[in-house]
């Protein structure tokens, strides 16, 4: 279903994306996050509280086959993706917060993802290869650390890495679209409406709930919009990588359906949301006089 070449390519791409994410960080960012744990705590709660619950409810309510349900759960338990940073950037949101939430949720994810997955999977009576998922997650932290070191040693290399990482994040979606979709055309046609609802709903409902959750906790509106994007936009590439690296080939196609569809649709959803948020964020930005160029 996914050949070895594609698998290697996938691995390299995810590594570069994580490298780029690391390059956007300094130890100071972590220090600051710990000094202001409130916003971050909200992020972790929405990422590992709200989203998995949402995924669980979707899997429960929509009558989907087991493999699809596993796909929904995995997708829902993913940390924030670098794509969320790109959309936050274009919507003029709080990029530092977005990056931090992505990173903390990734770091916390090493423990939380397998835990929550197991919990919900048990509730739905599903099989999840826990150790393999932990392994993949730990391996992915290595490029983040390398990226941080690179930035420290050479800001230019760091900035280039960061740029490539975010470009690749977008390219990744295109990659899925041109490789996975045509190969699995028949499968997509046979996929039930319920699967589509789950793949699209995860993003749309996630962003909506994330926004209202953050607003109800009196987060600054700009930060609330950032949390919303961060909550709804999951790390799609990571989900696909996990599926490819941990599940036997015969199950991959079905389990990957939701992560792949999610990755495709979230781009459209987020683009629309970004337009709305951008307007609101621009209005709230500190205005500096024109000539201070």
């Amino acid at each position, binding site marked *: 279903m996914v050949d070895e070449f594609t698998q290697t390519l996938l691995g390299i791409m995810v590594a570069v994306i994580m490298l780029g994410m690391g390059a956007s960080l300094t130890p100071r960012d972590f220090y600051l996050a710990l000094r202001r744990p409130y916003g971050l705590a909200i992020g972790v709660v929405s990422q590992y509280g709200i989203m998995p619950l949402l995924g669980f409810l979707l899997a429960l309510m929509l009558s989907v086959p087991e493999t699809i349900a596993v796909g929904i759960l995995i997708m829902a338990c993913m940390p924030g993706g670098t794509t969320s940073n790109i959309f936050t950037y274009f919507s003029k949101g709080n990029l530092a917060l977005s990056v931090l939430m992505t990173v903390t949720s990734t770091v916390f994810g090493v423990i939380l993802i397998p835990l929550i997955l197991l919990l919900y999977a048990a509730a739905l009576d599903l099989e999840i290869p826990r150790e393999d998922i932990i392994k993949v997650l730990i391996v992915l932290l290595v490029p983040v650390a390398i990226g941080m070191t690179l930035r420290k040693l050479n800001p230019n290399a760091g*900035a280039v890495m960061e740029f490539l990482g975010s470009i690749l994040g977008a390219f990744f979606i295109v990659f899925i679209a041109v490789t996975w979709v045509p190969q699995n055309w028949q499968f997509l046609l046979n996929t039930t409406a319920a699967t589509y609802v789950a793949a699209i709903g995860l993003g749309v409902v996630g962003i909506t709930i994330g926004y209202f959750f953050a607003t109800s906790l009196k987060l600054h509106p700009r930060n609330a919009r950032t949390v919303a994007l961060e909550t709804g936009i999951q790390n799609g590439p990571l989900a696909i990588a996990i599926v490819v690296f941990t599940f036997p080939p015969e199950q991959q196609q079905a389990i990957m359906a939701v992560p792949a569809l999610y990755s495709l649709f979230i781009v459209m959803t987020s683009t629309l949301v970004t337009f709305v948020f951008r307007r609101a964020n621009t209005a709230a930005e500190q205005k500096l006089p024109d*000539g201070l*160029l």
Partner: protein
Amino acid sequence: MVHADRPWQAFYGPNVRPDIGTSSYRNLPELIRSVAETYKSGKAFTCCLPNGMNGTLTFAQVDEMSDALAVYLREVAGLSAGDHVAVQMPNSLSFPVAAFGVFKAGCVLVNVNPLYTADEMAKQFEDAEPHALIIADMFADKVPAATRGHPIPNVIVTRVAEFLPVLPRGIVGLVQKYWDRSVKPVETAHVRLPEALKAGRNRIASDHVEVGAYHQSIGHDDLAVLQYTGGTTGVAKGAMLTHGNLILNMEQAMELLAGDLEKGGEVVLTALPLYHIFAFTVNMLAFYWLGARNILIPNPRPLSNVKRAFENYKITWMSGVNTLFNALCNEVWFTDSPPKHLKFAGAGGMALQSSVAERWREVTGTEVVQGYGLTETSPVLTFEPHGKAREGTIGIPVPSTDVACFAEDGTKLAIGETGEIGARGPQIMKGYWKKPDETEKVMNGDYFLTGDIGYMDSDGYIRIVDRKKDMVVVSGFNVYPNEVEDVLAAHPGITEAAVIGVPDAASGEAVKAFIVKGDDSLTVEQVRAYCKEHLTNYKVPKQVEFRDELPKSNVGKILRKDLRAEQTAQIAAE
């Protein structure tokens, strides 16, 4: 020994000479070369883009590149000594190369604000008559319209990412061209800066051109820069600044500031534009002279654009205007981890509000010392000595400078009396380009009249109470808008305020305040009640108007004159 007429000298540190005498440098090129020989491979200029991409030129590189540009201008472009060269670009590595190259060619630099519209450019070009223009590609699309009728024979085009390593430069180039489309095709005949440098280098190699010959005969009285000013007073005028003006002003400022700074050891954040006289003299010249590394920020808007510079470099000194210090104190990323290596900061360009200075001290644990000066004075006239800042003052005159206040009839007033501030010293311009009448208006003997009203404390600290024309007279009482604005700005619900006088049937003139709210629930009644707590009744704004923003000049000075014009037009219409 403190001179009786110069009480401020008591505040000079032990190593500050009250009179710096003349400089050991005859002209700017000599200074540039001498500094480069001292610091050679030290880092002189670093351009830091919002994403952290950067490029650096060493002292030796800037020296070599500016030599090549000088030779290009003289040998290839065919310019002569004294010809004018306009430079129009945001902060970037090209800026020092261009400015130094122009000086070395024995030509005169004309700084042009890159944000000018084609009309504004045309006016300045018409007056300054440049023979060459060095412009950043982002703004080059305005050249055809700006030079219609007054063609500029040589156009050299550069870019913000010039001299960055090839990969970041390429990425920035692609992003600017295809993503944000900030670079439009250049339709004027031109050469690219790197090509010009190459051509210059070839000439040096083939013809054994001696760059030193171009500026050998240049002395302190020779024109170095035409710096346009007058945006806030009316007609734009080119202040003629000489090599002596700039060299000595730089040395005057450093005589006072450098006591706490280390030669060859400072890292300076240059977020203010170099085309403006403050950053030009203080950051680009004075700190270059000190062997410092200038971190150039092409565009500090939005403010998150300077975040990477603070993260990646150990900033030890920075210059700014009130607006910048205020805005930084409103950014969470800045207040959460303020720069650790900062020694102090210098403010200029506009009055530093005491509430902002206080915030800055709280956030960074360091002081902002305020300086004062004008384009016509190269610009530094006064500075607060580090560690001896005094609230509400602009500090004391820098060495070799006399400051006195003058009555309306031109007589010199005693210390303590309020009048128009005048100054004399080696930094006073030669006059306005082609405008002897305007020059005459601002000179009183050898004193240059600043147009600012103020007085001197008995020990020499100077206080500005207002601009000459901004004073409001309410039933015979003088109200100085700055004072009212300061009170308003200290209100937690007010972001910004401007105060002007408007005609009033009862009191002749009345005080009117324009306010940008920080707190949406603020009402007119609350503002007036608050003012009454802090001000004598006649100073309390009779009218209060809330606005979304206030008109500002290109360095962030609030333009009261625009508000006044608006009011006058409104009254005329009624």
